[in-house]
């Protein structure tokens, strides 16, 4: 398929959506490297990527709807992402919890009975 030229508002809209999306993806990756411990690192990619991918997908929907035909099937990616992002985050957090990875010192443990969440009896 030829890349068709976009005009005026569509050009600006698509480019800014893609840039915003990639910015959030970048911030998510920076967070992955910068936050202090495993559990905190988990927060960055699960959340920032949703908006990152969302921005790029929105840009793609608008681009293909304007240039060729009405295009919605990018929305499927969003559905899959919303279904899988929390589940993978949950499994990683669970693994981190059961392996008792080191947490940053100022983490407060507010559980009444921590043993109710561990493997040991």
């Amino acid at each position: 398929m030829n890349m068709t030229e976009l005009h005026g508002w569509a050009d600006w809209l698509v480019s800014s959506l893609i840039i915003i999306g990639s910015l959030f993806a970048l911030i998510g990756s920076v967070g992955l490297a910068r936050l202090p411990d495993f559990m905190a690192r988990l927060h960055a990619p699960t959340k920032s990527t949703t908006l990152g991918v969302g921005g790029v997908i929105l840009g793609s929907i608008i681009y293909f709807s304007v240039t060729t035909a009405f295009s919605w099937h990018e929305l499927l990616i969003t559905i899959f992402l919303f279904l899988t992002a929390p589940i993978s985050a949950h499994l990683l957090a669970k693994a981190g919890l059961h392996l008792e990875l080191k947490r940053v010192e100022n983490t407060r443990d507010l559980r009444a009975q921590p043993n109710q969440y561990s493997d040991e009896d």
Partner: protein
Amino acid sequence: MSKILPAPFLSLFLLVFWLLLQNTVTPGLIVLGAILSIAIPLYTNRGRDFPATIHKPFKAIEYFFLLLVDILISNLNIAAIILLPSRHIKPALIEYPLDIVGEVPITVLASTISLTPGTITAEIRRDGRALMIHALNVEDHEKLIASIKQRYEMRLKEIFKC
């Protein structure tokens, strides 16, 4: 109704999914999609051992949009925490007592918590009556629990009647 359509929302979801995959809407595709979305739930119904009924579909749609807005805000929050030079975050492990019952509602609530501002669900208590949440930056955990309760759990309770 329940003989031909054991799970009406699953059927609707499959039909929309099918049309999205095709990326065009023509009468033929709708008919084929309708046949598939009636046949597949009928065939797989025996395997569904976690029945859940949505009692208030409009509330569910409202919940979805509320969640979208909250994900947007949560993204900005996390971005601010990552980019701010000070690294004085206050993480905490919080026990969240559950009011709702049932596998599907609890799964939806846990996923919601994972997608929204600064919280991730890590584990469910052995008796299944509490979730363990890791919060990235929390001042007052009582307030966080109260806000999750009235923002999400109350709505889910209405939607699933559990």
